[in-house]
């Protein structure tokens, strides 16, 4: 790691020189001495890695300087090195955020040496975390969402809007369309990027545990609560909380979640004290929440609170050539990760992919391609190397038992959505009269999507 920049604030010239010499014995330290609080504060903008601070200074108190350092950057470790042996002073300074309190005596040298080494290790770990976060940022920047279809370009524009503020974002889309990927792209491009992205999948947590998972609990709140645990909302304070499969949350918890979102505070189970939380909320669901509201399965007030900026992810089958772009990307990625030579995808195999319905969307495509690479010979994925979940097209189409009329409505609605409500084009494709479609719209048998 780079040199540890240590600033010493000490008005006793003799002692300052001794500390400077001692800490400079380690060539990994870069030490600078300041004899007044004012001189130090003028240099604070250069952000030292740590500060040793004498409590009594000619122009101010150590407490005042500590406060200013913490206001500037609460993460700079400040070690008080003082002749004050008053316990109360020490406790107060530690409460104010001092890293350590060392009394000037014959043991100062050794204690300070050890403390500086601890701080160096912490700085190293922090650098490592920052580096890994940067990597994650790169991993989840927009380029990780592959494709150049018009529908995807619209999504990019929405993501760009989402990162500019901390508006709640609701992401809709079939399973495997990349809802979490979009949530991460928003988080890692937002002002919260340096804080953890906290994801909670409502469908994956047993109903009885969701409340404690989200809001935390106090020791003794219930049998087995042996110690206090903070919940996901507190973990995501000043960061992003991603509530996946929000449509699975039961009504009782929906009421609690609504209260948290309105009051911006949570109360741990077993506690009466509310804790302020400031989290950016992103929710996702494969369900149509508006429909769930109509059915009474989802609270209307919570629906409006969560709707925020809606982003609807298209199913893969509607993304045209993106299927091929993604397939090539997954093939390259799999080959790279497994030290295999690059593979090509034969034209008939590409055609086969474009005709398939992809019920599992991007997730399914990735699995199909990875298997395709494994099965391929001589560096080319052929048609026969692609094994789809279901080869039976009609079974894929008829996924629920319903009336023919309902199927007709669904098919027409599907094509109207796909072709931006171009009734004439849809009538041509389906070989029906356009008046039939207009009549169905007029009779509200089909509700057209007016969202841009």
């Amino acid at each position, binding site marked *: 790691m780079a040199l540890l920049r240590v600033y010493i604030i000490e008005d*006793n010239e003799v002692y300052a020189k001794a500390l400077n010499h*001692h800490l400079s014995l380690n060539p990994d330290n870069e030490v600078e001495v300041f004899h007044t609080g004012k001189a130090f504060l003028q240099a604070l903008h250069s952000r030292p890695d740590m500060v040793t601070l004498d409590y009594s200074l000619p122009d101010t108190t150590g407490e005042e300087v500590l406060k200013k350092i913490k206001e500037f950057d609460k993460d700079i470790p400040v070690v008080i090195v003082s002749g004050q042996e008053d316990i109360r002073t020490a406790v107060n300074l530690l409460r104010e955020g001092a890293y350590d309190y060392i009394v000037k005596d014959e043991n100062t040298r050794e204690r300070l040496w050890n403390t500086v080494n601890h701080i160096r290790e912490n700085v190293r770990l922090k650098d490592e975390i920052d580096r890994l976060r940067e990597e994650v940022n790169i991993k989840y920047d927009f380029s990780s969402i592959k494709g150049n279809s018009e529908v995807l370009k619209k999504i990019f524009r929405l993501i760009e809007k989402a990162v500019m503020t901390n508006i709640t974002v609701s992401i809709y889309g079939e399973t495997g369309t990349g809802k979490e990927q979009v949530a991460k792209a928003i988080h890692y491009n937002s002002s919260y990027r340096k804080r953890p992205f906290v994801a909670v999948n409502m469908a994956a947590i047993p109903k009885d545990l969701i409340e404690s998972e989200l809001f935390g609990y106090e020791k003794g709140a219930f049998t087995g609560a042996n110690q206090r645990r903070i919940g996901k909302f507190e973990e995501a304070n000043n960061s992003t909380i991603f509530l996946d499969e929000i449509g699975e949350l039961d009504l009782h918890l929906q009421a609690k979640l609504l209260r948290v979102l309105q009051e911006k505070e949570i109360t741990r189970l077993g506690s009466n004290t509310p804790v302020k939380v400031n989290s950016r909320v992103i929710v996702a669901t494969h369900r149509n929440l508006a429909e769930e509201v109509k059915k009474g399965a989802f609270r209307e007030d919570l629906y409006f609170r969560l709707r925020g900026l809606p982003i609807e992810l298209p199913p893969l089958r509607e993304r045209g050539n993106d299927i091929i772009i993604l397939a090539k990307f997954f093939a390259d990625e799999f080959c790279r990760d497994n030290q295999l030579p690059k593979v090509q995808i034969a034209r008939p195999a590409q055609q086969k992919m474009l005709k398939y319905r992809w019920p599992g969307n991007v997730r399914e495509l990735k699995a199909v391609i990875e298997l395709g690479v494994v099965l391929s010979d001589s560096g080319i994925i052929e048609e026969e190397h692609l094994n789809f979940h279901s080869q039976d097209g009609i079974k894929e189409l008829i996924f629920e038992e319903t009336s023919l009329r309902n199927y007709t409505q669904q098919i027409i609605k599907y094509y109207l959505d796909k072709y931006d409500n171009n009734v004439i084009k849809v009538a041509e494709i389906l070989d029906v009269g356009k008046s039939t479609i207009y009549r169905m719209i007029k009779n509200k048998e089909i509700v057209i999507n007016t969202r841009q």
Partner: protein
Amino acid sequence: MTEQGPLFDLKQLDELAAGSPDFVNVMIDTFLTHTPEQVEHLVSAFQQGELKRMGEIAHKLKPSIDLFGISGLTATVRSIEQKGKAEHRDDKLSAEVLELDRVMTLVFEELHKMRPQ
């Protein structure tokens, strides 16, 4: 030398030097440049009845006295510091300030002699 033992002991500074030959000389120079003035200010504060200021200067002087191993003043400087902080003038304070001035003057003289000419 005083009747209680050596005036000062540079053992701590030698240890701190960790093989750096100039360090002790630099420290002696720094000590001789800044400390006599501090002692003067302390005595003057006492004489003017500014006990709080006297205590503050004693507080600042304390680490230098410890670093130079001036063991004859270890307790005295702390007593002056405490009395200054409490603004408490007792009948011993005057003698303590005098003793600090006397010993430090001797220390300055001895250290001056040690400086390379």
